């Protein structure tokens, strides 16, 4: 029973940690499936986290914060589109540039507005997305096995967690069952085919990039107004890159990407619990090795078990009409 509860708490933590990765990875899904490489997930999340926290701090509303976060992220996404789609710039360079701008700008504006070293004030409970206790969770708590499972793991997350999980099937449906999805996948594989079918490549790619902005906006808002309670300089700390890794590990497909995110999050949750624990037969493992676990795992998976990840054929290349 004790092990069961430990496992539940581990999984609970996994869900919380997976949410921002998942949202960002799905953002990457839309962008890269449309043929626009997005190294800038990190930066978009960061500006969104800042805008959301700043707005929530000033107006006291988590929802307004979410809106502001999305807006900020979308603006960055549009810039990416402007550079890569309109001006056919290098997509990786644009992503790197926007990450750096986001890193600096959030700190500068944070300093200028709040004078707290780039932080925003701590958000009170009602300016954050609180935990939602699902119906009957308390009542069913006593039921063996299922009760704790429902109470600990399924219930008690904030709305954005449920939203992120809902976006996975939605994304699958959009990508594989709608006109937009068909075109989106096509434009990432062979933009010329889309163009000759009478569809605007530019418009489609902008749409994809905008959706990526939207999702990164939610991811950022989650970091600062749901999981955390305020913004810190560089609070994404590499999550955007990890999300990108998850997308690649998931071979640019929504459901496998979900599992990749859960895997990374699980490794992360596990590492906080493995620190200082003596493993049977090995003894106490250095903290740093455990900290590196998610990254080592990624490398091992990429190298060994997932095989060659084949990106959408046209990703990374600006579309130039050619023979």
């Amino acid at each position, binding site marked *: 029973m004790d092990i069961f509860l430990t496992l539940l708490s581990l999984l609970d933590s996994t869900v919380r940690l997976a949410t921002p990765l998942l949202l960002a990875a799905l953002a990457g899904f839309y962008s890269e499936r449309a043929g626009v490489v997005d190294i800038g997930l990190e930066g978009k999340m960061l500006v969104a986290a800042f805008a959301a926290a700043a707005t929530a701090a000033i107006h006291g509303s988590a929802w307004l914060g979410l809106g502001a976060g999305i807006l900020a992220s979308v603006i960055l996404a549009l810039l990416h589109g402007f550079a890569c789609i309109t001006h056919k710039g290098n997509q990786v360079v644009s992503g790197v540039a926007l990450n750096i701008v986001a890193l600096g700008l959030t700190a500068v504006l944070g300093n200028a507005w709040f004078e707290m070293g780039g932080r925003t004030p701590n958000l009170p409970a009602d300016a954050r997305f609180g935990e939602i206790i699902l119906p009957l969770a308390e009542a069913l708590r006593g039921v063996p096995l299922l009760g704790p499972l429902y109470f600990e793991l399924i219930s008690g997350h904030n709305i954005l967690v449920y939203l992120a999980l809902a976006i996975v099937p939605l994304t699958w449906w959009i990508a594989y*069952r*709608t*006109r*937009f*999805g*068909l*075109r989106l*996948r*096509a434009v990432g*594989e*062979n933009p*010329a*085919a*889309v*163009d*000759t*079918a*009478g*569809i*605007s490549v530019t418009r489609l790619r902008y749409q994809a990039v905008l959706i990526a902005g939207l999702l990164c906006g939610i991811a950022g808002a989650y970091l600062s107004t749901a999981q955390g309670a305020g913004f810190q300089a560089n609070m994404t700390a590499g999550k955007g890159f990890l999300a990108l890794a998850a997308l690649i590990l998931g071979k640019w497909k929504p459901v496998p990407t979900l599992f990749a995110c859960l895997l990374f999050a699980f490794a992360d949750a596990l590492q906080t619990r493995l620190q200082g624990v003596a493993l049977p037969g090995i003894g106490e493992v250095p903290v740093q090795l455990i900290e590196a676990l998610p990254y080592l795992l990624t490398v091992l998976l990429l190298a060994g078990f997932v095989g060659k990840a084949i990106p959408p*054929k046209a990703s990374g290349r600006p579309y130039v*009409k050619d*023979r």
Partner: protein
Amino acid sequence: MSAAPPSVSSAWAVELVGIDKRFGPVHANRDVTLRFAPASIHGLVGENGAGKSTLMSILYGFYEADGGEILVRGKQVNIRTPQDAIRLGIGMVHQHFMLVETFTVLENLLLGHEGGPVLGPAMARARAEVQALEQQFGLEVPLDALVSDLPVGVQQRVEILKALYRGAEVLILDEPTAVLSPPEVEQLFRILERLRQQGRTVLLITHKLKEIMAITDRVSVLRRGQVVAEFVTKETDRQALADAMVGRKTSLAVDKAPATPGPVLLSAQNVNVIDARGVTTLKDACLSVRAGEIVGIAGVAGNGQSELLEVLSGMCRFDSGTVTLKGDEIGPATKYDAADARRRGLAHVPEDRLKLAVIKEFPAHESAILGYHQDKGLSKGWRLDWKRVVAKTVSLMEQFDVRPGNPNLRTSLFSGGNQQKLVMAREMDREPDILLVGQPTRGVDIGAIAFIHRQLVSLRDRGKAILLVSAELDEILALSDRILVMCDGEIVGELSAAEATEGRIGTMMAGIKDTPAVEGVSA
């Protein structure tokens, strides 16, 4: 030449008037005026780079013209995007297919014509409509197969079906037969015939004058972006067309003396290649090439010829069998790569020159040493001696009449024919004992074809062994002393030059020994 009747304008399905188009310094179309009648097949010929594809792409809205106007059924129209063209009933099958390879056939057909934001219901409707079209035109395609799994011939049918599904009254086909086997060509022509009977207009671009003679009603000739001639097909012949294309008298035949074969320089015994997906792409290949002979390999592209060339040239591993090169046996485990091959006197002109034989981004002199960059003669100590490399390139360019003769020009800026001449020059320069050549004249104009053919024959006459792969039966017949036919990864037959006829080879190419070609898809 027959002048167009001073028109009741609706007599024309499509009229192009004074179309002009430039790509930077290249003037691709100059003041082109062409009219196409309904219920007809109109041929369009011209050397590479004459501007045929550009012109058709303009009609299809893929490129925008710099000047001129387009009339459809007598009405002036504005075609800015393919969407406009599709709406006006114009469809196009591009030289390079515009298919999404990771999609199924049905998804490709739907793209851009989905009939609603959600695919489900539209999909069912489309399936029914497409099946009706398939029956109407005898165009069979497996709707649920992935495009990447289909042979090119079927992919092309998908392209045609796509255009018809989108309601094309005018169908443009850009070099549709380049990749088809003779039976597939026949089948295509039957489809085109049926389209004509239904009153539709077909615009057919091809380099094969024989096809023009066989199926078109009228034919226009483009040269350097201009219309230089227009014929009623029945009133002209191949020689006249060729002369119009090139702008001077041309000869279509190759002179060569009978071969005097020497010892076997290159042979393969039971070579098998299994690719990453587990498909056997080369099955029990056995062949030998003697000094002083040209062995031709006929076959539709993609039937194992590339693999054969790659194995023999050391680019690709094989899974079993032996290759014997000037007496040395090479097995699957022997270290043998392209550099070893060159060292042993084997040179290779690959089928796909842009993909393999040159590097587009490099200046010509760098492409001119690709594969030979290790040569001591090109280096001075640790460094490559660019002066010598450039001098070498200049001399290669002179020998093979590469134009422009500028060794510093970026490789991609040379026309296809000139790139090919550069590659031929490079590979023949070291007097290799064995030369593997794939599609030596694909995308090359008539003058250069003759030049390259002469070079190959003279190399043979100097006692070298030549293995020639070509999808052009005419070329195989004209050059080879012995002919092997490949189908589906196997060498299905051998004919001597004397016994070979187009008919016999064509049948063998389809993988059939005696019976005439049958239609059908083998998925």
